[in-house]
């Protein structure tokens, strides 16, 4: 598998603004911006022309309480414009709120607690039961400063590192692609947090079957 980001998507824009729908497909995939590269790659690889991708700002990851309201607003805005909508989020820290929104709107969503779990595979992730692992994906490795360093104030106050990460042991990089430069970036992130580093290649995990199940 090669680098997923062989597209013209801008990571900073995906983080802060998301991605507007292209308007071509009859089924809307309403996704987290952190999944835009992977979903785009899967759409291209499989010729899923029935799918239209829209992304909400990936930075919602840092504010899970805002995810369900944001998805609900987007679902309301998309009403009547598509045959169906699939929400490419897992629970993502919403405590079931997102599942309730999806059920109310008749939209499907990805099973599992978060993208780390569905990239790794739900059963395998649950069996690991790792409570001292701090996970990053390809997207989060690329946007590490936007998601971790700056929001936590570590650029201004590195002395806070222990308060945030003192109980973590390992930064686990769940790699969707083979990318040596990105692996180095993830390794540097582990160093910055004072954690051991582990890389696990996951590919797209359960994301591909979840999208495969969407029918026009």
């Amino acid at each position, binding site marked *: 598998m090669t680098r997923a980001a062989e597209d013209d998507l801008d990571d900073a824009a995906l983080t802060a603004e998301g991605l507007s729908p292209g308007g071509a497909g009859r089924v809307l995939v309403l996704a987290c911006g952190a999944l835009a590269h992977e979903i785009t790659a899967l759409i291209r690889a499989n010729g899923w022309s029935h799918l239209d991708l829209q992304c909400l700002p990936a930075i919602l990851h840092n504010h899970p309480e805002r995810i369900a309201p944001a998805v609900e607003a987007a679902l309301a805005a998309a009403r009547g414009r598509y045959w169906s909508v699939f929400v490419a989020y897992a629970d993502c*820290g919403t405590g079931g709120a997102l599942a309730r929104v999806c059920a109310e709107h008749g939209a499907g969503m990805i099973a599992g607690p978060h993208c780390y779990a569905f990239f790794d595979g739900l059963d395998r992730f649950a069996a690991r039961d790792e409570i*001292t692992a701090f996970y990053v994906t390809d997207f989060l490795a690329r946007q590490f400063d936007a998601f971790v360093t700056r929001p*936590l104030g570590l650029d201004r106050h590195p002395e806070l590192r222990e308060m945030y990460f003192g109980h973590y042991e390992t930064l686990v990089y769940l790699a969707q692609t083979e990318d040596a430069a990105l692996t180095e970036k993830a390794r540097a992130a582990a160093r910055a947090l004072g954690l051991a580093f582990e890389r696990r290649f996951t590919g797209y995990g359960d994301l591909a079957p979840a999208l495969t199940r969407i029918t026009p």
Partner: protein
Amino acid sequence: MSDQDDDIILSELSDDDLVAQMFDDLYDGLREEIEEGVNILLERGWQPYDILTKALVGGMTIVGNDFRDGILFVPEVLLAANAMKGGMAILKPLLVETGAPRMGKMVIGTVKGDIHDIGKNLVSMMMEGAGFEVVDLGINNAVDKYLDALEAEQPDILGMSALLTTTMPYMKVVIDTMKEKGIREDYIVLVGGAPLNEEFGRAIGADAYCRDAAVAVETAKAFVARKHNRIAARA
């Protein structure tokens, strides 16, 4: 808060101005300045309990309110807490010596599977600041650890914290086990953590959900007062 902090000599300020300056220094997370302010007030004959409540807790309450209102963010709150910790480290042994009032006792810990303790630590600190004795069980606590601590410490309050939606249901395991053992009503159970809300607190059978550290202190005080009133009425 102020651009002129470098020009201020703390020891030259009046008591009122010094306390106001300590509010500013707490807000700005200046630990050394807070430690200096505490020592100056002690030299001036202030009671440790008064320094704690009027200068430190008072300043930290402003920080907490601005965090709640979205003016301050987590890094600033942590820096302020770190500054307060510096002041409390000086005051803690003196509080014991001077017989400061005790509000009650709390056992607190983050639940099993969860290693996040920033919120719990803030609550512990503010509860201590409010005069509670706090027994901190740390992170990743299984039900037996909570129950053992309840038996050994006989606190008024059990506090449980979780940051993850995947770990917060464990609070119900602890409360249900307390019910099974017939000890649930012996304790005030307070819960907190970013993904929780009042509805969740009610659903799992806690006495209250506490949105932040300041709310935890006020809730604890109210419940302990009610408990004491009940005991007094029975006597």
